[in-house]
């Protein structure tokens, strides 16, 4: 029950109201069947012995009104409870999404964490089963108590008999539970894979290649492999669980038969009136079925509890370093404050000291003892062959990964010593594979809900759009800068082209106004004119900032103050374009490889 309780504690409103309505629903649903067991006895007694018509009709009326009352109350309570449960479920979903963002960066795209997240997400679907389960459990307990009292008043051992036979179902139920968990463990990963293939049906990024390279057969055969293995796992599970469920039913029927025989014999020997016979028979049927419902629901609840463990475990995955604000020593705090105010004045230097790094899943060093420094206000270009470690270095600078050894300092302070939010405020980054959000344009820049953006901020957003030459475009949109990007939120949403997206990403970086600008391959999809435009814009906004550029187009990077040439994770050379061109070396040969193509024809 531990996980269920943990989960219930996340409820936005007090979980007391959840529990209140739950108990009310349980009480009503538990009392109802007992009511139907007791009332006919009185009616039968009237019919057979007492024969008092006014009582008879009174009982009938009472039975009917009682049924009405419990129906109304149960109905109301159940509705309230459903809504509260839905609210809880929704907030848990948001919690899960938030956690996904906060876990260690390198974990986010690994299969095992994706599988785990899949199970965590699925376990929330189990919550929909939890509410009816809790209701039936509560109901069953009420029914058991009241029918047991009825039966004890006649023969106490009848209750023992009924309960005794019910106990026999426990090992069967245990076995069922093992099967169920095993099934969900074995099929989670396969299910995710199968669903992944099916997502391809609507993912049109794949559609062209699949058609032209006639890859549909390959894809469908892979999907079939997953499907077959899901079906095999399913087949195993349902065949065995079907037999167990069948056996439980058999026990219940045997129980009914036995009780019936005992009651029948008593009726034969006139130990029981017809009314009591009917009532006790009904009571024992209700008791038997309530007990099996109870056991079954306990099994369901423990299964849900175990499934929810995936959710709880996922929430307990380590957060990224620096997520929890460790209380920093005062002295250090003062130092960070000082550095931050220096940075705000526009003085930002970067020192990379002996940094080595390899990805957690690989043995290969991507960066090896890398050391360099960038002076305040300097514009630096990182160049090198594919796989030289340039993009990795950017990820380290952004604190997405921690260096394996060595340190990265900003104004002499290790970047990992800054409070996280303040650190992000220092950076304006455009990643190679940057992504805009499918929300309003203003929200993409402001990173706030549009109704919370102040007039002042709005003016700055427009200014940023102006700087990246997108203000006219934005103002021509149906809702100006409050137009949704993509059609997700509205049919009238705007879909920017690749070049426009790139400029919007620049505008976002401008608005963010970090003192350190990092731009990774921002122009690969642009035609020559737009490329030049974008580069001149970038150089423009990087004035008065410390900036790092990465590009394969060496005509663009040559204007940087200094160029760092990376090769195999090491710093091969550094200097201005002119200085680097004076010596034979990687830079010169790369530059000439491109420039030669443009040499004039004469």
């Amino acid at each position, binding site marked *: 029950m531990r996980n269920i309780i943990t989960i219930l504690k996340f409820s936005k409103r007090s979980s007391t109201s959840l529990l209140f309505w739950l108990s009310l629903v349980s009480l009503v649903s538990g009392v109802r069947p007992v009511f139907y067991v007791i009332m006919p006895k009185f009616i039968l007694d009237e019919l057979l012995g007492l024969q008092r018509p006014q009582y008879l009709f009174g009982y009938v009326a009472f039975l009917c009104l009682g049924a009405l009352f419990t129906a109304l109350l149960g109905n109301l309570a159940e509705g309230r409870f459903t809504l509260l449960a839905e609210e809880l479920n929704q907030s848990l979903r948001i919690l899960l999404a938030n956690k996904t963002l906060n876990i260690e960066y390198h974990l986010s795209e690994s299969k095992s964490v994706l599988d785990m997240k899949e199970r965590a997400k699925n376990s929330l679907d189990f919550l929909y089963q939890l509410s009816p389960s809790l209701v039936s459990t509560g109901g069953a307990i009420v029914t058991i108590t009241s029918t047991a009292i009825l039966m004890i008043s006649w023969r106490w051992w009848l209750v023992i008999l009924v309960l005794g036979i019910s106990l026999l179902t426990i090992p069967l139920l245990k076995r069922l539970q093992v099967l169920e968990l095993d099934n969900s463990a074995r099929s989670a990963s396969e299910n995710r894979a199968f669903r992944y293939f099916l997502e391809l049906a609507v993912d049109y990024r794949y559609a062209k290649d699949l058609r032209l390279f006639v890859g549909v057969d390959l894809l469908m055969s892979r999907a079939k492999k997953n499907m077959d293995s899901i079906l095999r796992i399913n087949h195993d599970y349902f065949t065995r669980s079907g037999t167990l469920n069948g056996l439980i039913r058999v026990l219940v029927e045997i129980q009914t038969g036995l009780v019936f025989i005992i009651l029948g014999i008593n009726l034969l020997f006139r130990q029981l009136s017809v009314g009591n016979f009917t009532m006790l028979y009904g009571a024992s049927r209700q008791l038997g079925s309530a007990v099996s419902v109870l056991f079954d629901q306990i099994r369901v609840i423990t299964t849900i509890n175990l499934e929810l463990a995936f959710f709880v475990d996922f929430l307990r995955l380590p957060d990224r370093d620096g997520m929890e604000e460790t209380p920093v020593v005062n002295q250090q705090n003062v130092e960070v404050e000082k550095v931050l105010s220096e940075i705000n004045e526009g003085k930002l230097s970067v020192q990379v000291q002996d940094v080595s790094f390899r990805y957690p899943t690989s043995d290969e060093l991507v960066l090896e003892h890398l050391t360099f420094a960038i002076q305040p206000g300097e514009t630096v270009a990182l160049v090198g062959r594919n796989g030289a470690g340039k993009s990795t270095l950017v990820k380290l600078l952004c604190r997405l990964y921690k260096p394996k050894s060595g340190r990265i300092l900003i104004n002499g302070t290790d970047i990992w010593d800054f409070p996280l939010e303040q650190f992000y405020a220092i950076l304006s980054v455009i990643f190679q594979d940057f992504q805009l959000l499918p929300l309003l344009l203003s929200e993409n820049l402001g990173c706030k809900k549009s109704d919370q953006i102040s007039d002042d901020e709005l003016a700055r957003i427009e200014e940023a759009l102006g700087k990246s030459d997108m203000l006219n475009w934005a103002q021509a949109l149906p809702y100006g800068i409050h137009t949704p990007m993509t059609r997700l939120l509205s049919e009238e949403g705007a879909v920017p082209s690749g070049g426009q997206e790139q400029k919007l990403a620049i505008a976002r970086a401008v608005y963010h106004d970090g003192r350190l600008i990092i731009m990774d391959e921002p122009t690969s*999809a642009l035609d020559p004119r737009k490329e*030049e435009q974008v580069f001149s814009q970038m150089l423009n906004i990087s004035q008065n900032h410390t900036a790092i550029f990465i590009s394969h187009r060496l005509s663009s990077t040559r204007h940087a103050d200094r160029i760092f040439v990376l090769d195999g994770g090491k710093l091969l050379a550094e200097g201005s374009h002119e200085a680097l061109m004076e010596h034979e070396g990687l830079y010169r040969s790369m530059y000439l*490889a491109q420039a030669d193509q*443009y040499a004039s024809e004469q």
Partner: protein
Amino acid sequence: MKVLRFLFKKIRQYDPKMLWMLTLNAISAALYPFIWVFVPVLILHHYQDWQISQLILLIGSAAVCAALFGFITEWLKGNYRMRMNTVRYHLIRDLTEASLRMPYQNTLYPETLDRIEFSRNSVSSPHQGAGGIMLTLLPLFGEILAVLGFIGVLSAVSPWMFLLVLTLLISNFLAYKKHAVLEESTFKAAMPTFRQSDSLTAVAHDPLRKKDILLYSAWNVVESYLRDFADKIVGIMRTLVEHRIKMNTVLAFVELLRDLVIFGWLAYQFVNGKIDAALFVLYTGSLLSFMVLMQSLVQNLVTIQLESVRFSTYLKFMEEVYNQINVESTTAKTAQRFEGAAEISIEDLEFIYPNSEKNALSGLSLTIHSGEKLALVGENAAGKSTLIKLLCRLYRPTSGHILMNGIDIWDYPEEQYFSLLSVVFQDAITFPFSIKENVTMGLQTNVLAYQIAMAQSGLQAIAEQAPKKDETTLLRILDDEGIELSGGEKQKLFLARALYKNEARFLLLDEPTAALDALAEKELYERFASFTEGKTSVFVSHRLASTRFCDRIAFLKDGKIVEMGSHNELIALQGEYQQLFEVQARNYRQGSLFSINTNTGLETEHA
């Protein structure tokens, strides 16, 4: 009914055992409720003159029957559900296949995408659409049989009693139906909210988005949207719950009326000596069971009706796609004999995207000679990618023709045309399969062609570095050991895939060097001649220097070819091409520096 017929056909096709399960379950589920209704009646009727042995015999055999039917019902419940899932998975798979095989052009229409989405919804849950229908069929048949039995008992009591019960049940049916229709329409109206909430949640879950969300502290805005969606969803649920409470309240009063009438009437009959205690028990018992049964029958009928409507989208979509595919394949088309490189002539080609007034291509004519290397150049949005898609036979021209060796490309059988064609798309992405499978894209490998493609593209060297060589999985989505390729490595992979198709006579390369470093780019150009040998090729690139490896250059602007000729000719022409070339070239010349103090690169260009 059409939907049910279709579904039964699929059941027969994918898991025919479900049919006898339905029959067996119907029988045992129909008989079971009678057992414990009749036994007490018999006892009450005869207890005054029975022996214990008779009593035990009766109850014992009843228990055996009940245990047997109970076992069967329970066993079938799980097994049937499993088989239902089998059929459902096949339906999902069929849908995926159909949407991958339908003409690519369909993807341009949002209606098509919506219909695929609806169809997917109608098979993706075990409780909705096809799953909902199949699950409901299981109890339904048993209930129908049992109801017939009870009607027999009831009409013995009194025919007008039966009529009364029936009337009440019909009102129940209408109430449930009304609620179900409301539920359906509410959910349909709420679809955008659900879709938006799901998509935005997926954005938050997407590993690729994580960097940007973190660095720009954008979670807050995402979260406030998610909260709004959650509130809306709870609001929708509230509407439904409130309606359900109202409906159930009314139904509770209807039930009160029903109970009063039935019990009152039975009591009255008893008081007047028309029935004895045993019959009283029998009638009340069977009436109560009958009510429960009818209630569930009514609900199940409503479910089947609604889910059939939902599932009919699937049916319609599949029919249309296969009609389209059939039309394509019957109007075709005998395979053409083919030798040497292809000759392509484009005649007066026009293309307009749906929902757009502007021509993406207007009156484009062009001949690409056999074995020629043609460069396609122009600014973003000039129509280059559209032309490539038309050449790939992904879109049909609005008017005009594309001929390959004198025959319209749409008159080739699809497989033949695709086998003659090899493409590297600019926006291609890798599949979470092995490197080898990403190259061959098929179930069998032509070893020789594979080795050549690996060597020519330079992918060989990359594969050798990978932990499991070319068996290494790409991406970690489906394999923890999977690897991620860099942009440059991916471009080599896509090139290898294009080269692997060794019967190809027509090669289309859309920006194959955008992510390559300077040396890798140069290397590729040097090998360009060798892998375009024996093929006609079209090369799209923003790096204009690369076009000098081509025989001719076509300069596209506004969907038309405005300049055409060799590099030297076009430079001499001093036109658009020359200007664009100059933009790039001047930055490589010594001492040149584009102005960094103004962001008006475009204007200086025109000045």
